[in-house]
């Protein structure tokens, strides 16, 4: 591993001049040529120490660390090719924004790669890719990452698609790192598949937790949270659509708990209050006309009142029957497919409570 970039090695000036002439032939535009040279880092070399700064400034990028001392940090040579003059030279560790015009010079830059230095006159663009190497550039420049979006290492493709793909992959790994922080126990597993597995499990457990908590809240506060139960029901149905493994039984229980609660409460006062609440919900949810659920005498009054009245009147005779009626009316606001299941469950539950 010999450094030939800015070093006093005999190969360096020769290569530089040959490449220079090569590119002067390629690019008649002087500005372009200079920009190109700046991108290559050729201006680091002692021939144009003053120009190098200017060109780097023009690129909107600070010069690489090798510029100041002329060590040619980014010009480490890896071994030597067939001839002394054709010593393989590493591409400068060029930094390119995917959307930047820098792409262009970088694409050309491959022309100055090893073999072209020897036979610069016949340098073809496609040849550059052929001799691209997979070895990642060890020259780390972490301090430069603030303005760099994509770093093209030696041998990495430089066309826009590859750059975009690299950006995409970088973003994905960034997200993955973030998720790793978010999901406990995710830092232990390695590999994308394991991490995704862990994330999926975590999301599922969180969903279950949310469901469980809302269920309990709904159970403990039937009057206020009837709408929440309704929401949950909607969510459950959606869950069913995508994940049939989930059972609907817990939800039914959540649905039923309030009524069990009310049935078990001793006094008439307690009985009446939730019933009124349910009635209000009926007023909102029940699409059926009031006359259907209310006795003829109470037909003129709002549904909530009639429901409460019917519950009250029936309670003396048979509480279970009254609640069954009430639940029938309540659930009629829901999807028809759930109605039989719910009322059946309700009946069973009520009997148990009784």
């Amino acid at each position, binding site marked *: 591993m010999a450094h030939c970039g800015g070093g006093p090695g005999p190969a360096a000036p020769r290569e530089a001049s040959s490449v220079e002439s090569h590119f002067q032939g390629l690019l008649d535009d002087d500005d372009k040529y200079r920009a190109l040279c700046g991108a290559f880092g050729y201006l680091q070399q002692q021939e144009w120490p003053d120009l190098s700064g200017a060109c780097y400034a023009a690129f909107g990028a600070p010069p690489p660390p090798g510029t100041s001392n002329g060590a040619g940090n980014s010009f480490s040579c890896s071994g030597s090719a067939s001839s002394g003059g054709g010593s393989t030279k590493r591409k400068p560790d060029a930094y390119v924004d995917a959307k930047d015009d820098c792409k262009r010079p970088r694409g050309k830059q491959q022309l100055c790669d090893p073999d072209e230095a020897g036979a610069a006159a016949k340098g073809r663009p496609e040849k550059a890719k052929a001799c691209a190497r997979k070895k990642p550039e060890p020259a780390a420049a972490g301090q430069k990452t603030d303005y760099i979006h994509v770093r093209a290492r030696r041998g990495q*493709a430089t066309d826009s698609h590859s750059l975009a793909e690299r950006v995409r992959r970088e973003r994905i790994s960034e997200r993955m790192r973030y998720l790793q922080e978010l999901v406990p126990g995710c830092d232990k597993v390695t590999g994308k598949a394991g991490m*995704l597995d862990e*994330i999926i499990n975590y999301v599922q457990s969180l969903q279950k937790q949310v469901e469980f*908590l809302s269920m309990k809240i709904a*159970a403990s506060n039937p009057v206020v949270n009837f709408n929440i139960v309704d929401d949950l029901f909607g969510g459950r149905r959606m869950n069913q659509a995508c994940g049939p493994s989930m059972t609907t039984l817990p939800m039914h229980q959540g649905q039923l708990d309030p009524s069990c609660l009310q049935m078990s409460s001793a006094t008439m006062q307690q009985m009446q209050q939730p019933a009124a609440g349910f009635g209000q919900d009926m007023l909102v949810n029940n699409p059926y006309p009031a006359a259907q659920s209310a006795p003829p005498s109470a037909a003129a009054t709002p549904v909530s009142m009639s429901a409460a009245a019917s519950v009250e009147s029936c309670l003396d005779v048979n509480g279970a029957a009254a609640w069954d009626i009430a639940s029938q009316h309540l659930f009629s606001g829901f999807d028809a497919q759930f109605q039989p299941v719910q009322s059946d469950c309700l009946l069973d539950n009520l009997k148990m409570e009784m």
Partner: protein
Amino acid sequence: MSSRRSSRGAISDEEVNELMSKLQSLLPNSRRRGSSQASTTKLLKETCSYIKSLHREVDDLSDRLSDLMSTMDHNSAEAEIIRGILRS
């Protein structure tokens, strides 16, 4: 780069894709968007925000539940029943 990826195996890639679609089905937005395969970046981003929202929801619900429990303690009849439900 591509050779490195392929050397890791096609099985892993398939596995990852499968997991990705599974993850997508867990997200609430996936239903709205239908079956169209979203980009991985977007999917991961949505997963991040979804996990955060779930965290918030859990916290919120826990708070509410504890509030309810604290206010319920007075009327013993209901509180007793609720406690029974919660214990089950």
